[in-house]
Structure formats: C-alpha cells, structure tokens
C-alpha cells in the first residue's frame, strides 16, 4: 500500500536524522490517549451523569478538576519528550544471535526530570530510562540479531506515558547507525599452521612462549598482555607495561575459505572461519584470512581480530556508504 506508506511517512516524518544531536521538537512528537486514558474518560462521563442525577455540585467540581487533570497530564506527557536531545553512540559489533546494543546519549536541558522514557526498536524489548533535571544519561537500545552482516535496526520508538499514564507520547528518532553482526561462530579444530616464509623471524622477538621482559603498551597490544603486577606496583605510570614474549613457533596460520569442509553452505563456512579466528586469537597465533576476493595478511591482536571478523561479517555485502533512503 504505497499511498498509506507515504501518508505515514508524511504524518510521522519518517526519515533519517541528519543533524546531531537529535532534538525532539513538537512536529515530531505524537500523542494519543491510552486505554487507561479512555477508561478515565468513561469514568468521568459516568460520574458526570451521577453528579447531574443527584444534583451534586461538589461532584461537578470534582469531575471538572479531574478533567483538567487529564488535560494537564497530556501537556506533561508531551513535555516529557519535548526538547530532549539524543546523540547516538558507537555501536559495538556482536555475534549473530546475541542482542546488539545501540547506545544513545540523552541530554535533558530543562529544569525538571524526565522519567520513564522507553526506547525500543520495532517489535523488540524496550529499555526504560529516567533522566535527572539538566542531566545526562545513556541508554542502550537492544535489537535481537539473527544473521550476520550490517544490521540496520531502523528507527527507534521513544515512548512515554509519564506522569499519569492517560496519554502515550512517542517519537521516531532515526539516527544513522548500524551494527556489524559477526557470523555465529562454529567451533571446529584449527587447520594446521604453515611455517612463515620469513625464516629469519623464526626465533624473533615477537613470539608467544618465553617471557622476554616488559615494554610500554601500544594501542594495538592486547589487554591480555598487560603486566598487571607491574601496573599495580606503579599505578601512576602511563602507559601500562606489557609483557613481551620471545621464541616459540612464530608460525603463520592461514584461515582460508578453501580449508573449510567441502559441501558446506557459504554461511556455514563463514561460521566455521569465525570459530577459527576466535580460536586462533585465543591461542595468540599469528593468523591471516583468505576469503574469495578478500585477503587479510597475517597478524595478531584485537584490531586484527576485529578486521578479520568484520570481513567475515560483511562478506558479500554492499559497502556501508550506500544508504538507501
């Protein structure tokens, strides 16, 4: 139903937010009475009939006060969203099957607290946040993942019923964000490693077995190698020291598409490769990744692991900057 869809796009202003922070203005906050609100209205009507029938003047006053309360509650529910500032944060990659968390930094410029803000993606569980007056808070909106690839969760539904639950106000912030979903790993034994071509580095200074001393940590060093004892002794020293190892088999492990069992589907192969990457990283081996059309040179460390996993996740996908509206 293209007509209805475009009507909704116009009515709800369904489009991506280009400007940051996202500020919720009155044109993009929508509000309707909830079932509780309708029940409240019904109760008021019944009460009015009763008050007229028994000529209860004070009853009229009560009903009018409650009606006023309903109107005021509408304004307050609206203001619970109005003027809220949202800044999307960096999304951490997850494995397929785990929920992805999309972080939002919230900023409340007004002097009253905002309470019970519910963030959710369509059909997903909501997270609830209270924002102090003129304060900030962070919320991570969860989105279930099923398959690998780049996950676009769509718009966020930001809803609130606070204070009285008679009205539900909502807005559809839609930041540019996506999450890289790694394939779900399948753990199989690692393939056999092959000696590196560089014979001179066979007993180099970057082995994994013998402790060879400490050196200042570089960004690329894994946290696993931090010499915590040394750090604990001299807490003020920056950067931390990492343990350096030497010797051992400085062999290169090639995790190649071709090594996966024949007869597996593409997705299964990718899952097996993911399992290998994780296993190789755990063993602190030097490993490279070879996929059809993609080749990542052998390496080590968190950054290398991440680029391998990302290559597996995005295998066969279009590049990110191709954003369909």
């Amino acid at each position, binding site marked *: 139903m293209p007509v209805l869809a475009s009507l*909704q796009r116009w009515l709800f202003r369904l489009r991506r937010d280009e400007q940051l922070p996202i500020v919720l203005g009155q044109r993009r906050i929508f509000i309707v009475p909830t079932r509780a609100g309708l029940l409240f209205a019904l109760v008021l009507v019944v*009460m009015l009939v009763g008050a007229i029938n028994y*000529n209860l003047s004070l009853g009229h006053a009560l009903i009018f*006060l409650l*009606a006023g309360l309903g*109107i005021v509650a509408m304004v307050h529910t609206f203001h619970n969203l109005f003027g809220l500032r949202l800044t999307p944060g960096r999304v951490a990659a997850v494995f397929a099957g785990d929920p992805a968390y999309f972080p939002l930094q919230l900023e409340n410029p007004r002097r009253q607290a905002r309470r019970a803000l519910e963030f959710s993606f*369509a059909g997903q569980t909501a997270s609830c946040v209270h924002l102090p007056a003129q304060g900030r808070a962070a919320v991570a909106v969860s989105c279930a993942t099923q398959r690998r690839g780049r996950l676009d969760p769509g718009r966020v539904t930001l809803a609130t019923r606070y204070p009285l639950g008679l009205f539900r106000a909502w807005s559809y912030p839609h930041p540019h964000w996506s999450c890289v979903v790694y394939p779900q790993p399948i753990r199989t034994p690692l393939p056999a490693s092959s000696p590196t071509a560089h014979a001179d580095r066979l007993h180099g200074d970057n082995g994994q077995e013998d402790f060879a001393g400490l050196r200042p940590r570089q960004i690329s060093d894994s946290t696993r190698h931090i010499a915590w004892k040394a750090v604990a002794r001299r807490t003020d020293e920056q950067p931390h020291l990492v343990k350096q190892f030497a010797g051992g088999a400085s062999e290169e492990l090639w995790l190649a598409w071709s090594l996966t069992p024949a007869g597996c589907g593409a997705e299964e192969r990718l899952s097996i490769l993911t399992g290998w990457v994780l296993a190789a990283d755990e063993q602190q081996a030097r490993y490279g990744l070879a996929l059809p059309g993609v080749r990542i040179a052998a390496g080590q460390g968190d950054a290398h692991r991440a680029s391998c996993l990302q290559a597996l996740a995005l295998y066969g996908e279009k590049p990110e900057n191709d954003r369909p509206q």
Partner: protein
Amino acid sequence: MARNLKTIGRSSAAAWSSAALEHGAVPWLLAVALATAGPHFAHLPWWLSLLVGGTLLWRAWLWQRRRPLPPRWALALLVVGSIAAIAWQFRTLLGKDAGVALLVVFMALKPMEMSSRRDALVVVMLGYFLLLTHYLYSQSIPTGAWLLAAIGLLTGALIRLHGGPQPVAAVLRHAGLLLAQALPFMLILYLLFPRVSGPLWGLPQDAYSGLSGLSDEMSPGSISGLIVSGAIAFRSRFAGEAPEKADLYWRGPVFDEYDGQTWRARALPASATGQPPVVEGIGEPLAYSSILEAHNQRWLLALDVATLLPPESTLAPTLQALAREPLRVRARFSFASAIAYRANVNEAPAILQQALALPDEINPRTRALAREWAARPPEKIAEAALAMFRNEDFYYTLQPPLLGANAMDEFLFSTRRGFCEHYASAFVFLMRAAGVPARVVAGYQGGEVNPVDGYLVVRQSDAHAWAEIWLSGQGWVRFDPTAAVAPSRIEQGIVAALPQGEPLPILVRLDSDWLRQLRNRWEAANNSWNQWVLGYNPQRQREVLSRLGWRDPDWRSMSASLAVLCGIALLVVTLWTLPRRLAVDPVQRAWLKYCAELKRRGIARADWEGPLAFAQRVARERPDLAALTDEAAGYYAELRYARGDGRDHKLRCLQQCVRRLPPRRRKRS
C-alpha cells in the same frame, strides 16, 4: 507498514499493562483504597467496615512479608459472600447505600488480586469514582478539603505507578503541581459548563433519607425533638431592615385536624376551598430571599404571610407558600411578605367548618371551661385563654410529663408544663370548643443575624408552633399562647426562655463570645460555600453570567466560550511548563557578543574555532583588530579554562572589549 505500526502499538500497550506490579507501588494503592473507602465507614454497617479494614490490613501484611496473594477461588467466594450479605443487609442491591457498599467491597477486594499494572489502574479509577460517592452523604467544606487531598494521593499513585521509584515527597509535589495546573480548567468548567438540573431518572427510595425538618403532622414531642438540633433550617436576607425578632413568624405546615393525640394537615379538595386565598397586606411589603436546606417537604417557610412568591410555587389555601415538588436540595427563593395583613376575610365554609371540628367525648373539663366562655365575643375568648396561661402557674419546658388519653385536661388542669406545641394545641382546642374557628400553625420563630455576612440564620432549634383564629371581618389572626407563658421565647429566643439544665444543642447555647464569633465565621463561610459551590444550579449560573454582563446565555454560546477559555488555559499551562531557555553563562554571552560584532566587521568565527586560534587568524587577516581580539580571546580563555581570582574583573574587561571595538565603516556606494 500500517499493520506493522499498529501491531507494534498494540503489543507495547499490552506489554505495558500486563507487566508485573512493582513491589514498591503497592503501598500507594493500599493508601488509595483506604483514603477512598475509609470515610464511608461512618455510615456503612459495622461488619462491612470490619471486612474492608481487615482485608486491607491482610493485604498490607502479605505485601510486607512478600507472601503470594490468596487463590482466585477464595476471592470469588469472598466476593459472592459479601454481595449476598449486602443484599441481605439492605434488602436490595440497587439504591444509594447498597451501591456504595458494593463499590467499597470491590475497592477492598481488588488489591487482593492486584498483580499487574492493569489491576493497579483499575484500583485508581475505582478510587476516583468512589470519591464522587462521598458527596452523596456530605458536601461540606471539610469533605471538599479531604477529597482534594485524596485526589492528590490518587494522582500521586498514578505518578508512582508510571514513573518508577521516587521519593514520596517528590511524587506528592508533582501531584500537587498537576492539580494546581488543573485548577483553572476546573474553574472555567464550573462556571461555564451548561448545567442540567437533575434528576435524569427516578432516584432510588433511599436517596433523600436523613433530611430533617418539620414534619407534616404534630404529636407531642415532634417539635421538642427538633429543637435539640442546632442544624440550620434556612437563611434569609432582607432587602431592607430586618423586622423585630418578635415579628418573625416563618409559616410552615398548618394543622387543622385533631384526633385527640396528633394534629394533621387535612388535604381538602380544591372544590371545597373555593377561591384562591386573598391576602391584603398592611404597610410596605418586606422583600427578602431565603436559602432553604433540603427538608423533603413542599413548604417554603415564607415569613407570615407571603404576598409575592417565587416562580414555580403557589400560596396554599392555608396561606403557606408551597413549592411544586418537595424540596430535596438546598435552594434559594425570593419573597415579599407583609407582617401585618388581613387574610381570607371571606373564608370558604368548608375550611371554617374544618377549623371547628373536634374529636368527641375527650377532654370534658376543657370543654366545660370553653362553654363558660362561649357567650363572649371571639377576641375576648382568646384573651381569656391567654390570660389563663399568663396568670396561672404554667411552665415552659422541653421535658414535659407524658400526657394520657385526655391530654388537654391533664395539661390544663394538672401538669401545666409544656412546650409550644402543648400551648398551641390546648389553645386551639379551647377555641374550637368555644365555637371559634382555630388551627395550629407550625414553622419557625425568630432567628439570629450572623454579623459576619448579614444573613439571618434560622435553626431547627427555632422551630415553633402557634395558633390562629378566624375573626369575621379580620380573617385569620395569629395568637401565640407561648408568648403568654414565656414572652422571652418570642423576644429573645429559645435559650433565654428555657431554664439552665434543659437539653439544648451546645452550639445554640453559646455563652463565650469568641466561640460565638467563631461559629458565626464558620457559618458565614458555609453560607458562601452553599451559595457559590453547592447552590450553583442552572438558575444561579444564569444569574452569575448575567451579572458578569452576559445577557441570555444559551448552551451553545456557553459551550463556545468554554472551548475558547479552555484553549487559552491550555496555552498558558503549556507555555508555563515549556522548558525555559537556560540562562546563558555571562562569560559565554560576552564572548559570543564580541564574535558577533567581529562578524559585522567582516570576519566571522567558525563554529569549530577556539578563541586563541580565532585570534591568530584575525591577526593574519585583519591586523587592525588583532590586538583587541587577542586581548578578548585571552580573557575568554582564562575565564573558561583557568582557575584563579579576579574573575569578575576579567569578565568586565571582556565585556568592555566589545565596547572598545572601532565603529563600523560604512560601505561607500
């Protein structure tokens, strides 16, 4: 996509309301149940109050111990049992009292199965409804204040329910804020909402139980029973000077039938009374208006005798003003009365005949006395009777001895202690026995002016009975035998006439001045409350609107202006609660102003440019402004990023930099 949206909305709504109720929200809901059901304990049967209180305590105990709720079948049993008990107690399930009892039971039992948020919402909505039922019993100022507090509590419960754990004080403050903002809407709606006068349908039998006042018959003790009540019967305000207290006879029911025990008003057929009553007032009529408390009778208690009646009322053949319907709500009436009058000089024979009727064979001694006087002219007979009351030792007391079958004989010749009803009935009996048409009139006598608001307040303790006889050529003439026995009753009121020790309501017998003043203030406040809040009916609404200069308002124009005013109020509330623009830091403001001035002079700071980087660029591109900009940027950077003293001085220097900028060059065309 549309379907998608809709299902999302539904699933989130369902998820919200079926979510489990927070443990911390339960005490709020129990407080709601107690605050809305509790005040009904005053008029519920004791076992019901016990059941409700016990159930709420039980629920609180379960909450405190975090025990599971009782099984559903047990609750169902409890509900069915209490409904049956209510049906048995009230003999019905409809009606006002039974309905309220049912609602109270539901309110007490609902928390017992309260596990989700939806249940909690039902409790609060039921609470709002229960608040209304309190007004069926009382609409006094304290009830109004208590219920305002209760609305605050209920609203707080909703806020707590939707906003998660918060300090109690913060919740109540927020509820108070919401109520304060709702008040203007209430006032507008109260003033302008087109009022409909009820009832819309027949009210249950017990709707008007508990209204007190004069009854339509008089037997010994009926008026003295009323007199021990200090309740207000009505209030009046005279357009001019109020008459003397001794002239204030407010006419209620007229009794012309006696059966030896009880006086009754006999309903004569219209054909028997012949013509409508003819009243000829002597002197200037007194205009006044009265606000009558509901007494469930038709008489309007006009000052004897009414010459000008309010609409929808008539003057009965027995000369009292009658409303078309029994007075079931407090209402306001305007009259004019003549305290000196000639009424029904040509009285219908049927009425005169009725005014002579006596039951046979009782009170022989009284009849014998009357026969002695019968030869005299009627005025002399009346005077003889009054002289007897005045000169022989008759006493005025609220606690007379009981009288037997020959009540008049016993009263006149042995006990001689009695109250206005005894004197009035003995006098009328004597007159009738002597052949003079006479009847008993009940009503109120006197009243007391409340100096706070100037209203004359007439209480139930001012209830009185007197007599009137028909004299040819003069019509009906009032005689008050009580005045002969206790003149102070008529001139000063009931307190002066009764000896100490007689049972009178504490508020009627007020000796201390400040207590009396306090009571006067309280009653004046009640009077304005009654007129402006409780008595605000369709008629009063029209009066008020026309006083505001709005002639002839109809429901259409009222609804239109209602909508406009509510819209304005909504706008005001919206703007009031709008997030106010935060006060910009003065340092920031001064720097931005300086940058804005530079922009006018042709060099604009980019958003990303820091103060020092900007100063460097200015030095490159506009050497003429370099020194000043460098200075300003320096001050700004120090104020922003450095600690230290003399911030005020630096801020002033920064602000002065703006003023020290060279004037703009005009572009030459």
